[in-house]
């Protein structure tokens, strides 16, 4: 029984089936990006166990065929099965021969690559840091994700931020707000919405901007295109014990440009907001100079670069660097890339990535590349020896 099972899991036939399944998955995971954009499709197809592709309404006869769905295994399933397939094949067929060293190198490299991709999915965090020229920043934010925050500004030298990621704001749920006695009840959460001014009194909010300015939210379908920013919006009721302190309309577009909304308790006041998720760092980055060069006589960018200096509580860790294309700054477990700049070119936008497994693909590449060169090199030499040019 076990032998038969091992035989199946270690077979080349399974390899070919898994490879074919991954090809189908990647194909549909590419064309569905037209519907859902890269970011969302990646979650649907490659960071999942199963997924069903749906016939797009925009395709010929789309209005009659949208019921058509093709279920398939997601990236996690195929990746794990491949790992099992490789491991079983290794343990069953391993023998140390010079003619096979290349094969082992290729497949070890592949296993490492699958593992590193999984680690990246689970651990890597990407966000953006905007730094004005001659200014400093100590946080980065991501416009894809939002957070509900209560900010206590009563401390003289710092603010205390109590945050809940927007992912867990499910309508009907009540959540404890970390390090406070308060709870938040989610009445509505819309990944994307339009805020409109209306005299209609049906809004559930009874505090803040909703009542002062007569604003309500109309839910909209999320926009998945590359540059789109969705207006995440929520109606949140704050509870102290069982007593309601009020219900607020919160949205990530109601940012610093608007007067803050406040929750008042007996002890202190909190600012309440739904905002792009922020990551704070124990150091600051100062932008000394931003440069943007174009090809002569054109608007085609030729180079852009940011000269920065870091300010760390431990002065020994301060560092000056020039960040430009293909030359990131690696600092304190983070990597800073030149991503973009503000339209008036007075602020730089740096992509900040924390990815503890970033080195793994380099090892895997080395293994696979060398292994293949070795293995096919052997074949090629044999071929040349067999045939002399006619």
């Amino acid at each position: 029984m076990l032998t038969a099972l091992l035989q199946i899991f270690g077979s080349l036939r399974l390899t070919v089936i898994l490879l074919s399944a991954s090809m189908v998955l990647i194909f549909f995971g590419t064309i569905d990006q037209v519907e859902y954009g890269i970011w969302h499709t990646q979650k649907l197809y490659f960071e999942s166990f199963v997924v069903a592709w749906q016939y797009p309404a925009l395709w010929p006869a789309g209005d009659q065929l949208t019921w058509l769905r093709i279920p398939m295994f997601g990236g996690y399933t195929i990746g794990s099965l491949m790992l099992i397939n490789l491991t079983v094949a290794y343990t069953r067929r391993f023998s140390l021969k010079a003619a096979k060293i290349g094969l082992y190198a290729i497949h070890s490299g592949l296993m490492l690559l699958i593992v590193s991709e999984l680690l990246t999915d689970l651990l890597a965090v990407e966000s953006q840091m905007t730094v004005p020229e001659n200014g400093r920043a100590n946080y980065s934010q991501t416009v894809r994700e939002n957070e509900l925050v209560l900010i206590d500004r009563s401390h003289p030298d710092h603010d205390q931020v109590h945050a809940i990621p927007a992912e867990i704001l499910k309508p009907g749920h009540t959540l404890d707000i970390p390090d406070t006695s308060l709870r938040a009840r989610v009445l509505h959460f819309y990944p994307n919405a339009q805020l409109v001014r209306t005299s209609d009194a049906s809004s559930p909010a009874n505090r803040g901007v909703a009542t002062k300015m007569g604003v309500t939210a109309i839910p909209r379908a999320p926009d998945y295109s590359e540059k789109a920013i969705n207006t995440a919006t929520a109606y949140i009721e704050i509870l102290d014990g069982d007593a309601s302190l009020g219900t607020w309309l919160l949205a990530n577009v109601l940012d610093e440009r608007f007067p803050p909304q406040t929750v008042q308790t007996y002890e202190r006041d909190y600012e309440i907001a739904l905002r792009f998720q922020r990551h704070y760092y124990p150091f600051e980055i100062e932008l000394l100079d931003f440069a943007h060069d174009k090809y002569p006589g054109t608007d085609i960018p030729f180079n852009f670069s940011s000269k920065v200096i870091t300010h760390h509580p431990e002065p020994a860790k301060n560092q000056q660097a020039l960040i430009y294309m293909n030359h990131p700054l690696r600092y304190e477990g983070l990597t800073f890339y030149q991503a973009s700049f503000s339209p008036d070119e007075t602020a730089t936008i740096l992509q900040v990535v924390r990815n503890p497994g970033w080195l793994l693909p380099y090892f895997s590449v080395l293994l696979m590349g060398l292994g293949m060169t070795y293995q096919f090199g052997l074949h090629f030499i044999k071929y040349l020896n067999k045939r002399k040019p006619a």
Partner: protein
Amino acid sequence: MKKIIYSLAALLVLLVLGRYMRPATQESGYDLAGFAELPVQVGGRIKPLDSVARNTLLVLAARQKVETLDGQILSPIEWFLDLTMRPERADTHPVFKIEFPDDLGLDGLYQPGKRHYSFNDLRPHFETINQRFREIDPEPKKRDAYQRQIAELNNGLSLYHRVMHSLHPIGEPQRLDQLADEYRSYLSLLQPAMAELRKQKDGENYDAELVKTFLGFGEDYIRLSQTAQLRIIPPPAPIDPMEDWFNLGDELLNVIQTGQLSPYAMSYAGLTMAYRAGDATTFNQTLSELLQRVTADFPDDIGRVHFERLFNASQPFAIAIELYVLVFIFICISWLRWPATLGKAAFWILCLAFALHTFGLAARMYIQERPPVTNLYSSAVFVGWGAVLLGAFLEKFHRNGIGGAMAALVGFSTLIIAHHLAMTGDTLEMMRAVLDSNFWLATHVIIITLGYSAMFFAGALAIAFIFLGLLRRSFDKSAARSLTGMVYGITCFAALFSLVGTILGGIWADQSWGRFWGWDPKENGALMIVIMCAITLHARWGGIARERGIMALAILGNIVTAWSWFGTNLLGVGLHSYGFTDSGFLWMCAFALSQLLCIAFAYIPSRYWRSEFGQSQP
């Protein structure tokens, strides 16, 4: 017989070469070659007017010649002369290609059988075209065929107008007859007019007439500076290569500050007047002075500019296309008669075509100072080059014509594709900042493109296998084994290059924005090629697929590679646009269908196979 065949081959090759080596027509007496070599700054580099003329014409007319109403054939530079110096005549040349004129709904435009229209034909419809253009989808990827045609026409008219006014101000053509006088009176007006303007500012009495005339010039030249497409005037010497050049309008406005008009502007005015007067002697005289100035101002660049014009004129890729056809025909005949002699002749023609192909590639590298693959056009040229290299190599070893024929087939197809991709304009454009890395261009891009070459070549060999197996009696088991070995070997090569190329791409991405893998369409396409190779190789090792199965998989590889190379470009990611109406989509589909048909052929029951190999199959 041998001698006859060789002489025939040589004669055919000479015929092909001869068609392209004809000297430029000099009967007009104007030094066209010299004029074609005048430098302009376009898209971040200095290039000859010849390239501008060719690219503009490609965009408008989708070809590199103009057929005038009286049946005369104009070269691009002759047309450019008319456009910039005799606009009243250029307006009658049919240079606007409209694929489906009757679909545009422009009353009275459509003439049956006519696909090229002149500026004058379109003149009554400007309002309508512009209005319709404003109504269509601003996102180019979401436009349908009609909308694309409107956009192309509108942009074409605008380009035509802007290039036309690169060498002279906007106005009636007669104004060009006194261009030098106009500049001179503008210059002489400058000092007095400034003095009068100061008086006006101080509230004193001033010459209103003079000020009005001067401001008239100013307004005119501001309009020109916004219109003129080409930057033809270099800044005063010494010239920094990173400095912006000026268009004519800018230069005429600069005069207000510098008090001096660039001699380049004066020379272009002189050329215009001489050309309009039909005075070839003055034209050539002015031109040779201008060229001397250019040589003195740009000692480092003039060689490259001169070379670029020669490269344009020599058209190595066009010759290679015809030679590849010749190779293919020779080899096909060689399978019926005189295999050794014809095969040898074909091999040498293949080598010649390959040498031209290589020359073209190297010339582009020299002109652009870049590794060979920088955009889709150059990738097509390079895919063909790589496949021909592989094919010539196999042919040298096997001498059975299969490698050579398939090399010629892939070389021909990819150069045809490149030819059609060139219609969008300059194929030697500058790279955007993120791509601007000779290191990665030279490693990742080259390696992955060689992977495409190998995939297509393996696929072509597989197609050859199927047709030989189906039709050719003498195709026996050992021939089949040898061909399968070739497909296998090339697939190994493809696997290595695709994998290493894809992974290098990942490293580049990690260096550029911290993401080794982002699942974007291009990356996914590359990964699909790697997986395709892995499937083929594992299916062979596991005995899951035999000869015909391997061939079917290799042909499937053609579809996967075409998808990775072109298909992914059609998708408007996140835009809800699948590119169905793109003509590229139709070609993709047609190609995929043809390959599926070949795969179906592979599975025709063996009793219908005429070859010995087929008969021996169970």
